C-alpha cells in the first residue's frame, strides 16, 4: 500500500503524533526540573518565605489576601510562558538547521502548515502538563478564591501559551544561528518574567514603565489569571485580555507559516 495525502490540515498534523510522543519520551526527564520543580521552588521561596515578611494588605496586592495568593497566578502564567520559550527556541533551530527534521517531515505528504500545527499541539500539551501540575499542587495552599476560577485559569494558560508560541516560533524559524537566543532570553523572557506583574503590582512601576508593562502579553495573561483565581472577574477587562492574546496568536501563526516556508522552500 502506498502513502496518501492528508485530507485536511488537522489530519495531517495528527500524523506527527508518534514523532512528538517519541520526542517527549526521550526528553521528559531533561525538562522535568524546569517544568515541575522550578515553579514550586519559586512558590516556596518568594510566596511563602519572602511572603512572610510582607504585610498582607489586599489594597496593595490587587485584592489578594496574602502575598502567596498574589504571586501564585503570576507564577502560573510565567510558567506557561517559560515552557513555550523552552520549546520554541533551541528545538526549532535544531529542527530547521542542525537535525533538519522539518525537511524530512515535508518530504512526506505533509505541508509546512501541518508541521507547525503539530508542533503547536505539542507545545500545548507540555504547557497543559506543567500548568496542570502547578494548579494541583497550589490548590491546598488556599490561594484560589473559588474552584471555578482555578479551573477557568487553566484554559487561559493554553491561550497565553499560543500567544507566545506562534510569534516565538516564527522568530526562531528564520534565524541564521542560535546566538540571538541569548538575547531573546536576557532581553525578552527575563524582563517579562520580572516586570509583568507576576511579583509585584505593576502599579508600583513609574509612569511609562507601567504603560510598557501593561503592553506585554505576559501582563495580559497574568492579570486575566489573577482575576480568575482571586474571584474578581471583570468581563470587559477580561474581554480585552482575551482579544489581545487571540490577535497575537493569530498574527504569530501567519508569521510562523510565512517564515518557515521562506526558510525551507527556496
Amino acid at each position, binding site marked *: 500500500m502506498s502513502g496518501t495525502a492528508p485530507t485536511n490540515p488537522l489530519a495531517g498534523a495528527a500524523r506527527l503524533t508518534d514523532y512528538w510522543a517519541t520526542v517527549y519520551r526521550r*526528553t521528559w*526527564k*531533561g*525538562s*522535568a*526540573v*524546569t517544568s515541575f*520543580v*522550578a515553579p514550586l*521552588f*519559586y512558590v*516556596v*521561596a*518568594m510566596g511563602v*518565605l*519572602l511572603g*512572610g*515578611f*510582607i*504585610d498582607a494588605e489586599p489594597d*496593595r*496586592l490587587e485584592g489578594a489576601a496574602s*502575598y502567596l495568593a498574589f504571586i501564585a497566578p503570576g507564577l502560573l502564567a510565567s510558567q506557561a510562558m517559560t515552557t513555550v520559550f523552552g520549546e520554541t527556541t533551541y528545538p526549532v533551530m535544531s529542527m530547521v538547521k542542525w537535525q533538519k527534521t522539518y525537511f524530512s517531515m515535508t518530504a512526506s505528504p505533509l505541508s509546512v502548515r501541518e508541521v507547525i500545527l503539530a508542533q503547536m499541539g505539542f507545545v500545548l500539551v507540555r504547557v497543559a502538563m506543567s500548568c496542570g501540575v502547578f494548579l494541583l499542587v497550589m490548590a491546598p495552599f488556599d490561594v484560589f478564591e473559588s474552584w471555578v476560577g482555578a479551573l477557568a485559569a487553566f484554559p487561559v494558560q493554553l491561550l497565553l501559551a499560543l500567544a507566545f508560541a506562534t510569534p516565538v516560533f516564527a522568530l526562531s524559524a528564520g534565524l541564521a544561528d542560535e*546566538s540571538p537566543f*541569548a*538575547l531573546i532570553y*536576557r*532581553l525578552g523572557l*527575563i*524582563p517579562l518574567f*520580572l*516586570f509583568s506583574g507576576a*511579583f*509585584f503590582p505593576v502599579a*508600583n*512601576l513609574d509612569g511609562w514603565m507601567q504603560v510598557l508593562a501593561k503592553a506585554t502579553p505576559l501582563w495580559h495573561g497574568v492579570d486575566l489569571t489573577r482575576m480568575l483565581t482571586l474571584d474578581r472577574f471583570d468581563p470587559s477587562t477580561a474581554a480585552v485580555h482575551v482579544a489581545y492574546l487571540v490577535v497575537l496568536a493569530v498574527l504569530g501563526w501567519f508569521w510562523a507559516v510565512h517564515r518557515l516556508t521562506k526558510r525551507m522552500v527556496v
Partner: protein
Amino acid sequence: MALVSAAVGRTAARPLGAGEATGLLLYRNYLAYRRAWYIFLTGFLEPVFYLFSIGVGVGQLVTGFEFNGHEIPYAEFVAPGMLATSAMNGAVLDATFNFFFKLKYNKLFDQLLATPLTTADVARGELSWSLLRGGIYSAGFLVVMLAMGLVSSWWALLAVPASLLIGLCFGAVGMALTTYMRSWQDFEWVNLAMMPMFLFSATFFPLSAYPTGVAWVVEATPLYRGVVLCRELTTGTVGWGSAVSVVYLVAFGAVGLALVRRRLDALLLT
C-alpha cells in the same frame, strides 16, 4: 620551499610559560566573543533586572530587614545577594555549558593539546577567562548599586575580589563536575542545584525565615557564604564571620581546581 623549511631568522616553536599560555587563551576567547559582544554585554543585565524587580518593585511591599544589628532597606539587602548570585551564575555558565561545548563539541581542548600547551594551561586559561568576565560584571553591578545609593561603606570595593572568589569556587567545582557529564540532559542537574541555591541562600530574605535546623544547612552552602560576605562588605559590617566565608570559598575552589586538572588528564590524554 619557504612553506616548510625553517628559514634563517625565523623563530622556532617552543613550549610556553604558564602566564603566557593563559594570556593566549584569554586572547582566543576575546576573539571568539568579539563578534558576539552583545552576548557578553547582556550577561551584565540579568542581576540588574532582578535588583529592580525584586529589590525595588517587591521592596515597596517589604519594610526592610535587620542585618548584623542594622536596619537596612530591602533593596540594600537584595543587591549584594544579586552580586553574589550573578558571580555564581556567570562562573557556572562558563564552567558547565560553555566548557562542555568546548570539551565535547567543538573539540577545542583536543586542538589545544596538539600544541605545546598542557591540560594545566587549559584549566588555568578557561578559569581565568571566566573570572575576568565575572570581575567585569561585578564591577559594573557595583557601579549600579552605587548610583542607586545602595552602598554604604568603602569596604564595598572588596566586593569585586569577593565575587571573583565566588566565581573561582563555583567555576572550579562546576568544571570538575562537567568532566563527568555525558550529554546535555545531565545539565538538568546543574539547574536543579543552582535554582534552590539562588532562591534559598538568604538572597531575598534573611535566615530568620527558616527554622533553626534548616538555617544551619543553608549556612553551610557556598552561595550563602558568598551572599553574606558581599552583604557584609557593601553594608560595612565586616567581622570574623567574613574571614570564615573567605577561607571556606578558597578551600572549595582549591579542591575543585585540583580535581579539574586530574579529570582533564584522564579525559583528554587517553
